[in-house]
């Protein structure tokens, strides 16, 4: 009876870890898609209305509810207090964070021509990162989830 309970627990823990890892990859995709959506919105606002980034963040966060809005609000506060924009999100990879931070840093000194280039570059880079993240989600996230579930079953069999 005890073996069964231990085996079931091990199986559940392994499956839970697998789901957690899968979620990690999914969340990266979600965050990057949110960032791409923000870039599209900001690009239109900056291009047509020459709206500054602080106002763009306020307008975007007021009109949308996404995973990223909390971090955008933090970035706005960092800019207003004179600090370098950073993002401390566990779901994002190092290069995702670098892209996010360099976008906001670059806007500070981007004139009307260079802001267009900055937006195009950031949108293209984000698109590439989304492709990579989706590939990782499929190849790694789902695979790990399935392997962990199988591993859990294997552990249960061994324990029994």
């Amino acid at each position, binding site marked *: 009876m005890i073996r069964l309970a231990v085996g079931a627990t091990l199986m559940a823990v392994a499956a839970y870890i697998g789901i957690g890892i899968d979620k990690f990859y999914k969340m990266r995709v979600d965050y990057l898609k949110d960032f791409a959506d923000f870039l599209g919105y900001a690009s239109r606002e*900056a291009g047509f209305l*020459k*709206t*500054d*980034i*602080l*106002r763009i963040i306020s307008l975007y966060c007021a009109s949308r509810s996404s995973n990223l809005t909390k971090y955008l609000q933090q970035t706005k506060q960092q*800019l207003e207090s*004179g600090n370098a924009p950073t993002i401390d999100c566990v779901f994002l990879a190092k290069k995702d964070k670098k892209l996010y931070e360099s976008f*906001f840093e670059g*806007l*500070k*000194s*981007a*004139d*009307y021509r*260079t*802001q267009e280039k900055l937006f195009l570059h950031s949108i293209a880079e984000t698109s590439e990162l989304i492709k990579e993240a989706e590939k990782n989600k499929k190849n790694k996230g789902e695979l790990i989830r399935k392997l962990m579930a199988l591993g859990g079953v294997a552990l249960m069999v061994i324990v029994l």
Partner: protein
Amino acid sequence: MYNAIVSVCPEQGLTEIRLRLGLPVAVRVGLNRKVLPFIATKKMIDGVVARATGFSLYSRQDEIKQGFIHYSGGIRIGVAGKGIAEGGSLVGFSEIDSLNIRLPHEIKGCSDRLSNIINNFENTLIVSPPFAGKTTLIRDMARALAKNYDVVIVDERGEIGGGEGSIYDLGSFVDIVGNVPKTLVTEGIIRSMSPEIIVLDELSPEKDMKIVEEISRSGIKLLASVHSDSIERLTKALPHIARHFCYGVLLSNKPSIGSIKSIVRFRGD
């Protein structure tokens, strides 16, 4: 930076802060200059520019091309540095080395001295050298005129209305068109806003004469200001200006900012 400045000089009466790269920060309190015991650094200048542009230089590029950035509350920041010219015009600055931060003031009732002009309003030109209080006067006149007329202010530099975060009370009958050149919006205002009086700050005689003529021709009254220290010199150099105005009010910063030196009637109609 502002806190550091007000810690060594009084906030009241502070009208100007000048940052020149590598040189001591200078301020103007009233008409008196004062040099402060700290040096303007690149970081300090870039920080002011970043904040004033909302951390987005592109959003203020058109203003920078004209040599200034407007900041909330009607603060105007003059910029100077290494310009970039292209196709015969200034497209921006590669390095901004000097800033002149002009802090506006509101003095309610300062136009009471001109109540005779305000009560029977005819086209009026405020003539003033820098630092004589023309924007403060024109703002108060607009407020007073709006009690009896529909007033539209074309606030090219965001100084009269203050722009976003404005602290000014202009009453309930003032419309403000802000942050765009007068030449681009005046025709639309005449056609669609039905103003009785249009207020224009800091006329540029070369650029803005066409809109002055258009307003004058359309029967809308005009309150405007222009830089000069003498009405005689102005009318000699630019006689076509005077014929559009009934009154000229010359301001001076002596004995104090906002002093009325003379009031001239240009024409008798």
